[in-house]
């Protein structure tokens, strides 16, 4: 299956700006640091199919979930792309979602499960554990972890002809068992999630919207309408990024939406490296015969917003 994952560096982009609810292009601005030494548009002849991304600042390592390889993969400047841990392939088919890396080094991975085999996988030191106690009907896509280590999952049930019903839950893990405590519901196709100390944000692909879930209390309000949404990324200044279409949308905490960059096929996973001032992007190929791409966009963001 074996469609290729190509890796390429995109040109520089800029911080956000501007008011207004409608997406609009941002003006270019030079990146604060030189580009990392990655050859531009150099294809990597490996199986592709990456979806979600997680940047681990401590090890300067990018983690990727790859459904076609059924693997957790890593990429670094020095080591390139390789399989970190192979993950079990379920008969329902493999569709891997979000990643979070916990303080103890364990990676948690959402497994979509197609309505029958949904769950979470824990990967530690090459060992894979399918956490027990979770509803297999939930189609989990996004995972998030706040600064305190609280884990959130975004999911929906239904789909394939049935209206999707989505929610967000806090995930508690004890050994190989996990429980989900729903904190918000009433969404439709909830896919992306990120967490801050004061709020959890969830993207809804049906409604083309991003919702804010207040912490504590879990009151839900719509933050923004966006042309398309997919997995979410959180920038150091508090802005959100999402894709789902040919462009990356940037959403401020006040709900202002701008277009960070266009020209992709379909933006899926996003992850930001604050030290390197670069944004990693999974550019999913919608065209049969063309490879998926992992792209790197230089992006300077001032912390603290």
């Amino acid at each position, binding site marked *: 299956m074996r469609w290729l994952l190509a890796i390429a560096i995109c040109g520089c982009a800029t911080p956000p700006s501007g008011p207004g609810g409608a997406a609009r292009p941002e003006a270019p601005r030079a990146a604060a640091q030189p580009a990392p030494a990655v050859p531009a548009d150099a294809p990597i002849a490996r199986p592709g199919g990456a979806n979600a991304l997680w940047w681990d600042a401590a090890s300067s390592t990018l983690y990727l979930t790859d459904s076609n390889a059924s693997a957790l993969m890593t990429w670094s400047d020095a080591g390139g792309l390789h399989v970190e841990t192979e993950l079990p392939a379920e008969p329902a*088919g493999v*569709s891997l979602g979000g990643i979070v890396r916990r303080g103890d080094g364990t990676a948690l991975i959402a497994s979509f499960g197609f309505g029958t085999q949904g769950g979470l996988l824990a990967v530690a030191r090459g060992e894979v554990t399918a956490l027990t106690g979770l509803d297999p009907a939930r189609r989990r896509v996004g995972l998030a972890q706040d600064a305190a280590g609280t884990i959130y999952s975004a999911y929906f049930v239904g789909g394939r002809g049935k209206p999707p019903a989505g929610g967000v839950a806090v995930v508690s893990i004890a050994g190989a068992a996990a429980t989900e405590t729903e904190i918000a519901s009433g969404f439709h196709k909830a896919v992306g999630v990120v967490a801050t100390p004061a709020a959890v944000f969830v993207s809804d692909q049906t409604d083309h919207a991003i919702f804010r879930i207040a912490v504590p209390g879990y009151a839900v309000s719509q933050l923004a309408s966006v042309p398309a949404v997919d997995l979410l990324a959180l920038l150091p200044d508090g802005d959100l990024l999402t894709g789902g279409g040919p462009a990356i949308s940037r959403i401020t905490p006040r709900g202002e939406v701008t277009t960070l960059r266009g020209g992709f096929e379909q933006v899926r996973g996003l992850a930001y490296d604050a030290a390197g001032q670069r944004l990693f992007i999974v550019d999913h190929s919608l065209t049969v*015969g063309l490879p998926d791409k992992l792209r790197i966009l230089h992006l300077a963001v001032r912390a603290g917003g």
Partner: protein
Amino acid sequence: MRCAVLVLLVACGAGAPAADRTGAVADRRRAPALGMNDVSVLLPLPREPGAPVLARLDETLIDRRWYDALVGARGDIGPRTGAAIAFEDFQVVAVRFDLCDRAAIGACPQDAAGRLRLVLQPLYVRDGATFAHDVALHAFYPIPVDEVGAVVEGLRRLAGRGGAAAGAPLGVSPAAAAGDAAYLGALRALVGRHARAAELVRLTVIGQVASAAAFAWIFRGLDREGDGFVAMMIPGVAAAQQTVQLAGGDTVYRSEPIADVPAGFALATNGPRFAAAPPDQRAAAVAALAELQNPTLHDTVDTQCIGCHLAGFLTARRAATSGIDPASLPGWFATRAAAVPTIARQDARVVRAFGWAGNTPAISQRVVNDTAEVLSEIAARFGP
């Protein structure tokens, strides 16, 4: 859906004067033997969609009511890019001829009408190049029984144009790729003679599911009934539509509905189950894939749509992971005929059997085998 094949013809009608027919026979003696590319013609994509290589879709080829009933009014088929496709976006990308409609397994009866099939895909421009969306119509037209011989004669007159030897592998038509205006004109005349909306007997579609986040396809068709049409029932599944969603895990085709015919096919569509199966079941699964590509064993009359359209990639993949050589199996269709290497056997996202995946040709082994079988039957009936 028939993973079958065609042949092409050109000119000369059944009602031609005797003197003309005599001339045709004389011409045949001078004409080169038919090759793969003479009976199954994959056209190049045009440089500009506004200048079709052969023809764009219009109501002389397909009544818009058929198209609307199959695609347009349903709203569930469309490129994952979200681009809208219209009736007028489709162009003929391939032409195939056959000696009959393959309503029964085995050689075509001599008193059967021949068949012309057009493959049409919607085209678009991307970064200055022409691409085909992952949607295709197959339009089937009868060739009156008393005109089949003339069609073969016409094909022979065109054979070998573009420098392709009779033994050349099936690929993009050399003559069409060379822009041979005389060839394309003759082919266009042939299509125009037999591909008439009023004569359309079957229209099928394989297209991406417009709303799917993953790669997924719908397979369905219409059959003529009197002056109208009815849903084509898919053999083996007692349904008028099949859907397939591609999932990861060494290729899982999530199919609904699916028939385990031949036995082992369902296992072959699921990588994790295939990997976990005992050796005898894996062998049976690869054997099922081999049989699905053998026109002397199976054809559209007894084969679900996804059987032919998934077998190409799956045969290569399951053979590689199991170490089973499908050519060693009794159900394998033994032929020296081949296609040029294409993406069809390399990429799980390609379900096209004879058409274009983006701007890359896709040719399945089933179409190669069908073409070889048609050539064999033509030689047996009309001479080498």
